[in-house]
């Protein structure tokens, strides 16, 4: 049951394997890092771990260490050769040994199981990151379309979130409403964190049971997944009317996000986008709050992984390329009002960008 994106991906992967002289590509994954496996098999792994062996002729074997996941893969994956093996490493080694002296690459290399590389007889497996990393970052047209659809659902999801946020509700109840909406729309996964409160809130995290009260700022990032592809939106709302400090703070983030987005174009580096955002903070005397003490990144790539390269940071010199899908979000702590977020997803184009999010860029107010 392949999605519309899978055949095009396989073609691109075969070309990349040929270019990198790779006969067999070993791809490892789990529910956290599902992207490499998904690229080759179109299977979204949920439990346990999996390894795909992709041969140069396209023949692919998917090994899963959870029996129910193997059954689900037989219904959902785009390939036919699916094996259940309680010992993933033993089975993968057995199959790789059969490949003889062929050139084997693997990714993500640092996460590969230790036993795969170190057994009674060491296998010669090279770092195959180069084969697939660029494919994950720079999307094909069909992949961009999936990200567009995910972004549309992110917009719709935020409308649900706004409706759900009202005084007296617990933070995890808001998440429950979002998840209900996404499941009803056929979205199987969503990355989401939340912040509730004021100046004391230093970041977002999973919900802890906080009850919304008047004056609270409620921050969230929603990241629904469509056909395996994620798109994100970040917004902040205030329970009740926003006060002057909140409005003034939000204006800085809006200016920063718009400066960052205006900088996006093919050939511009991630560092230049981050600098455009951060310069706005520095202009308002908030330079301390764009450091790692208060913020992680000023945006990032998205695709089959919700937080992929390039990270938008002032020390990341990766040039943006047409077809990269990224979010620009100057999310950070503000000393007067607490953690505040604002971010939109977009596609990098030759001369700028294609904006994917349609939710107004405003500090929302809910009663």
């Amino acid at each position, binding site marked *: 049951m392949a999605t519309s994106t899978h055949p095009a991906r396989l073609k691109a992967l075969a070309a990349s394997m040929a270019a990198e002289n790779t006969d067999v590509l070993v791809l490892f994954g789990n529910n*956290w890092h599902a992207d490499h496996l998904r690229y080759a098999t179109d299977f979204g792994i949920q439990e346990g771990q999996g390894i795909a062996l992709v041969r140069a002729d396209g023949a692919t074997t998917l090994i899963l260490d959870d029996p129910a996941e193997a059954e689900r893969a037989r219904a959902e994956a785009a390939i036919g050769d699916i094996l259940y093996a309680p010992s993933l490493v033993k089975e993968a080694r057995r199959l790789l040994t059969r490949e003889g002296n062929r050139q084997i690459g693997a990714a993500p*290399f640092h996460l590969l*199981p*230790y036993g795969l590389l170190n057994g009674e007889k060491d296998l010669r497996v090279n770092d195959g990151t180069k084969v697939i990393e660029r494919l994950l970052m720079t999307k094909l047209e069909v992949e961009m379309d999936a990200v567009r659809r995910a972004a549309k659902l992110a917009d719709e999801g935020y409308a649900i979130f706004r409706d759900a946020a009202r005084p007296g509700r617990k933070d995890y109840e808001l998440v429950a409403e979002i998840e209900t909406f996404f499941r009803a729309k056929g979205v199987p996964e969503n990355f989401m964190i939340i912040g509730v409160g004021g100046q004391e809130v230093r970041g977002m995290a999973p919900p802890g049971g906080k009850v919304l009260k008047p004056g609270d700022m409620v921050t969230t990032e929603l990241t629904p997944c469509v056909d395996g592809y994620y798109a994100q939106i970040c917004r902040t709302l205030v329970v009740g009317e926003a006060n002057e400090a909140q409005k003034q703070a939000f204006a800085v983030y809006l200016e920063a996000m718009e400066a960052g987005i205006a900088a996006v174009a093919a050939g511009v580096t991630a560092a230049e986008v981050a600098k455009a955002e951060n310069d706005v903070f520095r202009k308002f005397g908030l330079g301390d709050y764009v450091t790692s003490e208060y913020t992680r990144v000023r945006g990032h790539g998205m695709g089959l992984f919700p937080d992929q390269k390039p990270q938008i940071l002032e020390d990341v010199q990766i040039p943006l390329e047409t077809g990269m899908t990224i979010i620009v979000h100057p999310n950070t702590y503000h000393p007067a009002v607490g953690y505040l977020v604002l971010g939109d997803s977009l596609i990098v184009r030759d001369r700028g960008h294609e904006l994917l999010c349609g939710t107004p860029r405003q500090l929302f107010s809910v009663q």
Partner: protein
Amino acid sequence: MRRGLMAWDEQELPRAALETRVALLREAVQAIGCDGFVAYTNIAKGAAVAWLSGFQPYWNEGLFYVPATGTPLFATALSKRVAEWIGSVMPIGQVQTTPKPALLIAQHIAQNAGQNKTKRIAILELDDFPAGHAKTFLENIPGVELVDGTAAFAKARAHVDTAERGLLAHADRLAETGLAAIDAKAANAQQALAPCDEHARLGGAEECFATVAPDLQTSARFQRTDTAGALGQTFAVRSSLAYKATWVRRTRSFTRDANLVPRFAAADALLASFQPPTEGSLAKAIAGHFTGPDLRVESWLAEQPAGSSPLSGVAASAGSEENWQRQAPFVLNIELSLNGARWLGARLVG
């Protein structure tokens, strides 16, 4: 990605219970001549660290180091801004955030090695341990020997305390509530799965993987909301659910066929009344319990936590029972044939 309720409540999971678990692990690790123990965690393989510390990362990865004595150390690639939050939901151990958690743990072990030049470190599931982290250990801890600590952990993990039983029972109730919210007349998978997820999460589930076998007449395979469409006359929903990092599964079959409704209800009752055997084999107990006119057991699978896996097959109709821990609760998944009609069920037993 975990996005449901994540909070620590001392009433549910007393610090003393975690300290006992760590002490049991230390005994087991010392018994195999090791100086410390390391378990890796991420959202797919978090059960061991959650059992030892109460903490399950919502994202990213980390390493939990238990030295022979002293405070355990948790190093995680989660960012600095969430360090305070981790501390609030992780009742024991010291937390450090770093882009390179393996390097931080390795340096900590090396600095505290003292006169003992050879360090034997037990690694949970060494074969599955990320190769990059193993390399970091080998390069940064002089004289280190990495040994497989899976059996040592399993020895400690055989201990099931009151706190764990309480969390399991709560998780099971949430899964049951979610399945009870499903309308047997739902037209498609999305209509069936959405309320299941909703009710579980409203009750405080940390995670809920709801999947559907859309037409039991043709297949017993479960699918997610993005690939399943119209529902047949009979379908089943499987809810794999975590509450405070404690996982259970429940499966319930639904039918729109009036003739099958009483048979499905009878099968539900049979599953609900199954008790774990105090002696003898599980297979024999299942065969003895699930009986009736035109009823046949097609297959079954028992699952318990094992190492870093929240639920792992420990006994099955097509395999041995040697990994099944009789004294511990388990999830029984079972497929029955009811006069030719497929029925699937699962619940927590014990």
